């Protein structure tokens, strides 16, 4: 990987990582942690949806699995929180592989694949809502015991850095995918699966690897959510809200780009938060801003903020488009 590819990642890491050093307001730090969790979930979606072209409407299935696995292993089996966190990621990847195997092997593509993922997430939600091991509809509460070995910290800054470290790790992973043989095959499958097959690409294997990676990354977001909020129920874990968040951030930021999900998540949530602070007396004003941004993005930047920036740079490069 070249330095050129890593430079923007390094810049983003330094920029966000420095915030807790200068800002002590927990309002900002809390906002940052939540935005980074969303960014992480969105990065997971981006690997499968952005690079692989397999649009999932049900990334909640992975988010929830990561969250529940981390919570159940801790509360019911007394496993260390850090180990539970890692196992949560593994569980997400495994669920990704299973869902992928079942749907890709049957040749489901496009809207059919999207619907199947949506169905999986809903089935998981209903199961989690009814089963005893997930605490049913009452949810699971991770015991509040603020110690570093329990993955609980008194300072919100530590959580910012952990979330950021995960986001940066996935940024590097995505940058590597973009330049690797696997990434090229994945993009080939996205652009034309038939042609990719004709060139000898094992489309099923490539897609399965992508969905397992995607599931693992989004599960990390779920597990982090549990460690941070210490509570999970079926609607939070497998609700459609997270599927939508995971899908919107890359679309706004730029699907199939390394920084797209992070840029999208920060823009969406940043804008929402700023509107709320400035015009806090009107309930729901941030949601209006959210919707307006979405319309503007779809109308003027169909390839996301990163795509828009690239187009602008290309124009300036050509001599300013006068």
């Amino acid at each position, binding site marked *: 990987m070249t330095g050129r590819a890593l430079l923007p990642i390094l810049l983003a890491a330094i920029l966000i990582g420095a915030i807790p050093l200068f800002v002590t*307001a*927990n*309002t900002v730090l*809390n*906002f940052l942690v*939540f935005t980074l969790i969303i960014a992480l979930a969105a990065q997971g979606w981006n690997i499968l949806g952005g690079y692989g072209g397999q649009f999932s409407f049900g990334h909640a299935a992975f988010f929830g699995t990561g969250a529940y696995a981390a919570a159940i292993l801790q509360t019911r089996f007394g496993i260390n929180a850090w180990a539970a966190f890692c196992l949560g990621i593994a569980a997400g990847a495994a669920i990704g592989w299973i869902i992928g195997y079942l749907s890709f092997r049957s040749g489901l593509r496009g809207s059919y694949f999207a619907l199947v993922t949506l169905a999986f997430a809903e089935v998981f939600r*209903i199961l989690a*809502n*009814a089963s005893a091991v997930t605490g*049913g*509809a*009452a*949810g699971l*509460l991770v*015991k*509040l015991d603020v110690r570093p070995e329990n993955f609980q910290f*008194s300072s919100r800054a530590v959580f910012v850095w952990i979330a950021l470290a995960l986001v940066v790790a996935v940024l590097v992973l995505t940058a590597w995918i973009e330049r690797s043989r696997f990434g090229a095959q994945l993009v080939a499958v996205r652009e034309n699966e038939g042609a990719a097959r004709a060139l000898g690409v094992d489309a099923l294997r490539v897609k399965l690897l992508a969905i397992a990676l995607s599931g693992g990354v989004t599960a990390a977001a779920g597990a982090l959510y549990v460690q941070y*909020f*210490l*509570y999970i*129920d079926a*609607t*939070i874990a497998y609700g459609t*809200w997270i599927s939508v968040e995971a899908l919107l951030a890359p679309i706004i930021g730029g699907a199939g780009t390394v920084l797209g999900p992070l840029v999208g998540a920060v823009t969406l949530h940043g804008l929402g938060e700023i*509107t*709320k602070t*400035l*015009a*806090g*007396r009107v*309930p*729901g004003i941030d*949601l209006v801003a959210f919707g307006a941004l979405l319309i*503007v993005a779809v109308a*003027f930047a169909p390839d996301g903020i990163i795509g828009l920036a690239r*187009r602008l740079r290309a*124009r300036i490069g050509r001599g300013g*488009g006068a």
Partner: protein
Amino acid sequence: MTIDLLRPTRRQLIKTAALGGVATIAMPAYLRAQTPAIKVGIIQPVTGALAQDGEFGRLGAEIALNEINAAGGIKSMGGAKLEMVFGDARSNPEAGTQEVEKLQAEGVCAIVGGFASPICLATTQAAARYNLPYIVDVGVSDQIVSRGLTNTFRFAPGFGMVTGVALDNLVKLNDAAGKPAKTVVLVHEDGLFGSGLAKLMQTELPKRGFEILETIAHPTPARDMSNVALRIRSLNPDLVIPSSYYGEFVLLARTMQQQRIRPKGIYAVLNGAASNYRFVKEFPEAAANVMDCNHWYDPRNTKAQELKKQVEAQGKVFAYNVPLNYSCVKLLADAIERAGSADRAKVTEALASSTFKDHIMPYGATKFVNGQNTGAAPVNTQVQNGDIKVIFPDAFADAKPVFPVQG
């Protein structure tokens, strides 16, 4: 090319955006007039799925704060006024946590509210990091007060307490009428309240001599209850015990009325609609004789009657959230008054030792044990002649139960 076409539009867009930005930035300057006061945080979900309940809660808190200020504020602190700092929990726990952080940054001395259990679980925990006293208004999940958080107080009864009373009163009701009801159909939403309640009923009702014919779950939101109603008709139970949110129960009650399905009684527990004046007003026939075991105000309390008139004069609905939040704010004001300070540790201590009686709920004196008010209790209500009456316990009742209902 598209890029050329876009250019003027984008320029206009930026111009408009800039203007809008300036306008929004300029606004809060005059909105936030500073007065030396004690800041009290109120958290309610006023957007999203729970917005209706959130608005009721906010209304109750607002009226109480205004009343306290009009009566001279906190006397032990030289008549200091209470200032509301409001946070919108947007019907989800993350937003609730973010609002706690905001209220903490604003320097509130305590927080009241939360409404839904998941929101309360998250917000009380976030407040605990700052030893910020938190009074839960509704949140019935018993996990809220079982975590050993010293900052968390729940004024109202929890799930265990409500269901226990509901079962006892059901038996009492049935026995008094000569045991007309033997068979039951449970209808519940598949979330926290519904499922938990159905599970409890399934184990407890048979012990008390009732036979459960079937348990029917439905999602929230549900847009059609015809199948549920038809199933009830074919089972023909003596009692229907529904636990659903507002919209779904209204739908079920209306469908049952249209299909002329008339069991001997509809006995709801913690129902979103059965003790809601909006339902009674909009669908008086469907609501007739529906019973509920829920939070409710003390109908014999004159202050409660005045508050009800005041709220209804504003054209608003007097839901249980209003008197509950009203009482919670009064409870907090009493604690601040006795502490003689807005210091968090002192307010927490004053809350923990509270014996507050000046509320408008059918509770006795307040007494917190591990954060739960042991003086709290639910009541049984029944819709009678277009009004909601209390039928149990006798000490607060303003009507006799109508059971079995004559179809």
